[in-house]
């Protein structure tokens, strides 16, 4: 195997391992799973091209976040109806804060894997109705109005319940991680 293809394989392995964390960063900024997926794919294409050129990346996760940030900014600039002001200093500060937030766990990539496993277990213990509501909102990507209609509840009631379930899940994950 050539040195070049070995380097690509190493980069691919690290990219796959870090994919969920990078995905959370991109999805959190964009709030659109489909566009986030496109951005992730583009990051990988650019990473592979960089490695092929022979560039050695000190911190691949940080490099990928930087590329993702630029792609997200470009997406915002192209969106006529974007609710955020793409070139504002406030937004740049926000991007800085969130890049830092994810950089703060760069030295513990396993934390993300443990978190996902803990969340899987926590979701499995939820009452069926809460899981139904989450499935509508986060898998089927239904609007809050649609969730309310499907569940036979008011918009306010669904908002409060989802907020409460999310808090309970986050606390459950933290409890499980603190026992490891």
């Amino acid at each position: 195997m050539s040195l070049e293809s070995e380097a690509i394989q190493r980069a691919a392995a690290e990219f796959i391992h870090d994919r969920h964390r990078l995905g959370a960063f991109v999805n959190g900024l964009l709030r659109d799973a489909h566009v986030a997926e496109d951005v992730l794919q583009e990051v990988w294409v650019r990473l592979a091209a960089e490695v092929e050129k022979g560039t050695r990346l000190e911190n691949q996760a940080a490099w990928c976040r930087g590329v993702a940030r630029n792609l997200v900014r470009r997406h915002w600039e192209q969106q006529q109806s974007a609710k955020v002001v793409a070139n504002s200093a406030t937004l740049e500060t926000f991007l800085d804060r969130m890049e830092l937030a994810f950089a703060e766990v760069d030295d513990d990539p396993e934390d993300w894997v443990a978190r996902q496993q803990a969340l899987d277990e926590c979701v499995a213990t939820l009452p069926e109705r809460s899981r139904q509501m989450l499935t509508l909102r986060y898998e089927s990507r239904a609007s809050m109005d649609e969730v309310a209609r499907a569940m036979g509840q008011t918009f306010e009631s669904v908002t409060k319940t989802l907020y409460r379930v999310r808090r309970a899940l986050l606390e459950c994950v933290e409890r499980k991680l603190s026992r490891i």
Partner: protein
Amino acid sequence: MNTHRDELIHRWREGNLSEEELHRLNEALTTPEDRAAMRGEWFLEASLPEALRTSRLLKVAELPQMRKGKG
């Protein structure tokens, strides 16, 4: 729990944040603990679909064992 920060995080997620509120969110994300809270929210947002699918698989995997247990 910081309700002011959590409310701003929630509003960012829903896409309802004004520039002034984004400025306030930036101010609310100056400590590692606050940023960890935001990271946790984004983790949940990105990971929930997979966790929901996994929980359904776990239920299906439990069924044959439950039937075996009954027999």
